[in-house]
C-alpha cells in the first residue's frame, strides 16, 4: 500500500503530472465529440444518397455520379488504417504551418467515422420494409417527406446499438493522436511514463479513464434505447 501511495505521488502528483492526463482528457473529448457530430452529418448524407440509388428510386445521373463518389470514398477510408490517414492529413494534406492539430484530428476522425456511420445508417434505412415507403407515397408524401418522417425515425431506432458501437470505437481510436504530438489521454499517459519510467499507473490510469467514459456512454445509449422503445408501444 505504501508503494502504491509513492507510485501514485510520483506519477500523478509530483510536478503536477496529472495535468498531462487532464489536458489529454479535454483533447480526447473534443476530438471525439466534434468528429462524431461531423461523422453523423456526413454519414447520414452519404447513406441517403446510397440508399436512394440502391432502392432504384432515382434515375438522376447526378445522384448516380454522387453514389459513385461515395463508393470510392467508403472504399478508401475503410480500406486504410486510421493512423495512416491521420499522418497523411497532418504531413501531406495539411502540411501548412498554421493548421491546429486538433482540427486535423477532428477532420481525420470525422471523415473516418463518416464512412462507417454511412454504412450503419444505410443498413437501417434498407431494413425498413418497402411497404412503409409505399404507404407514405400513397398518402401523398413526397420522397423526401417519406424519408424524413417515416423511414428515418424507425431506421434510427434500429441502428442505435450499432451507432453506439461506432462511437465507442471512435473514442478509443483517438488514442493514436500522439503520433502527431497531440496530447490526448494516451499521449499524456505516455508522457508521464517517459518521465517516471513507471509503466503501471499511467497506463492503468489511462485505461480506467477510457473505461469510465465508455461505461457512461453505454449507459446513456441504453437509456435512450429504452425511451425509444416505449414510444413504439
Amino acid at each position, binding site marked *: 500500500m505504501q508503494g502504491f501511495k509513492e507510485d501514485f505521488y510520483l506519477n500523478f502528483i509530483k510536478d503536477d503530472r496529472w495535468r498531462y492526463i487532464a489536458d489529454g482528457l479535454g483533447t480526447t473529448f473534443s476530438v471525439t465529440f466534434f468528429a462524431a457530430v461531423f461523422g453523423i452529418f456526413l454519414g447520414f448524407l452519404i447513406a441517403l444518397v446510397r440508399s436512394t440509388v440502391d432502392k432504384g428510386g432515382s434515375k438522376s445521373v447526378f445522384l*448516380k*455520379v454522387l453514389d*459513385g*463518389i461515395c*463508393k*470510392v*470514398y467508403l472504399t*478508401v477510408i475503410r480500406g486504410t488504417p486510421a493512423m495512416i490517414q491521420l499522418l497523411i492529413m497532418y*504531413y*501531406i*494534406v*495539411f*502540411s*501548412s*504551418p*498554421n493548421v491546429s492539430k486538433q482540427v486535423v484530428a477532428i477532420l481525420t476522425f470525422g471523415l473516418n467515422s463518416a464512412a462507417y456511420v454511412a454504412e450503419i445508417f444505410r443498413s437501417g434505412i434498407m431494413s425498413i420494409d418497402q411497404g412503409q415507403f409505399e404507404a407514405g407515397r400513397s398518402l401523398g408524401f413526397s420522397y423526401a417527406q417519406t424519408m424524413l418522417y417515416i423511414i428515418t425515425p424507425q431506421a434510427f431506432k434500429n441502428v442505435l446499438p450499432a451507432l453506439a458501437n461506432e462511437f465507442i470505437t471512435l473514442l478509443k481510436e483517438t488514442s493514436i493522436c*500522439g*503520433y*502527431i*504530438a497531440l*496530447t490526448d489521454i494516451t*499521449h499524456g499517459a*505516455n*508522457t508521464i*511514463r*517517459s*518521465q*517516471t*519510467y*513507471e*509503466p503501471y499507473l499511467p497506463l492503468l490510469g489511462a485505461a480506467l479513464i477510457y473505461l469510465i467514459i465508455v461505461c457512461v456512454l453505454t449507459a446513456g445509449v441504453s437509456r435512450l434505447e429504452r425511451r425509444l422503445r416505449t414510444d413504439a408501444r
Partner: protein
Amino acid sequence: MKKVLCTGLLAVSMVLALMGCGGSVPENSVHSIDDLPGKTIGVQLGTTGDIFASDYEAEGSTIERYNKGADAIQALKQGKIDCVMIDEQPAIAFVEKNPDLVILDEEFAVEEYAICVSKENAELTAKINEALAQLKTDGTLDSIISNYIGDETKGKSPYEAPEGVNRSGGTLVMATNAAFEPYEFYESQEIVGIDVDMARAVCDILGMELVIEDMEFDAIINAVTSGKADIGVAGMTITEDRLQSVDFSDPYTTATQVIVVRGE
C-alpha cells in the same frame, strides 16, 4: 467504366486541390538559446531533449513530443514548430538530408551515453563495465565510433568480430530505437550504428549472442525493468530520473544536445 474513371479522377483532383493549400512556411525565429522562451519546441518523447525542453515550459514555451525524432524534423520543415532539440549526431544526419535546416552553433548540454541494465542484474552491469574497459584500452571503441563519425574516417574501420568466438553464454537482448543515426539506424533492413557495433563487441567478449529489439524510445527503460530486454542501448544519457529505475554502465561516449532550426 467511364463513370468509374470520372469519379476516380474527381477524387484525385480533390486531394490534389487540398494539398495545394499548404501555406508558406514562416521564417526562422530562433537564433540562439535565449530565443527559446515562448517558442514551440519539438522533441522526441522521453529523450534528454524532452527533459531540457520541458524546463522551458514554465517560461511559456510549448513542447511538442513526437514519437520519432524524424517526425519532429518533418514538423519543423513544414513550419508547425519553431525548433527541434535533439542529440548532435542525429541532428547532423538530419541536416545532411534536409539542406533547408541548420544547427545552431551553441551547444546546449554535454552528456554521457551509457548502457542501461536492470537494477536486479548487477552482475551483468559489472561484466559489461569490464568489457567496456577492455574495448576502451585496446582502441576498439574508438575505431567503432570513427567508423560512423568524422568525414575522413567514415566507413573505414567497420567492426568485425574476432574469429572463433564461443557464444555459449546465451543471448543478450538489446532494446533500442533504431531511428537515431549514427548510433542506431536501419541500413538495408538491418540495424547498424555505433551502439550496435559496441554491443556486438561487448557480446563477443562476454561470449553471448546479441539480439536486437527495435521499439519506441520511451518503451526502452520499461522493457529493461520488466526483463523483456537485458540491456537498453539507444544513445541513452545517464540522468537522475532514469537512475531511479535502472542502473547504468560506465559511459561509452559523450554527446551534446543541439537546436535545429530552419535555415534563412
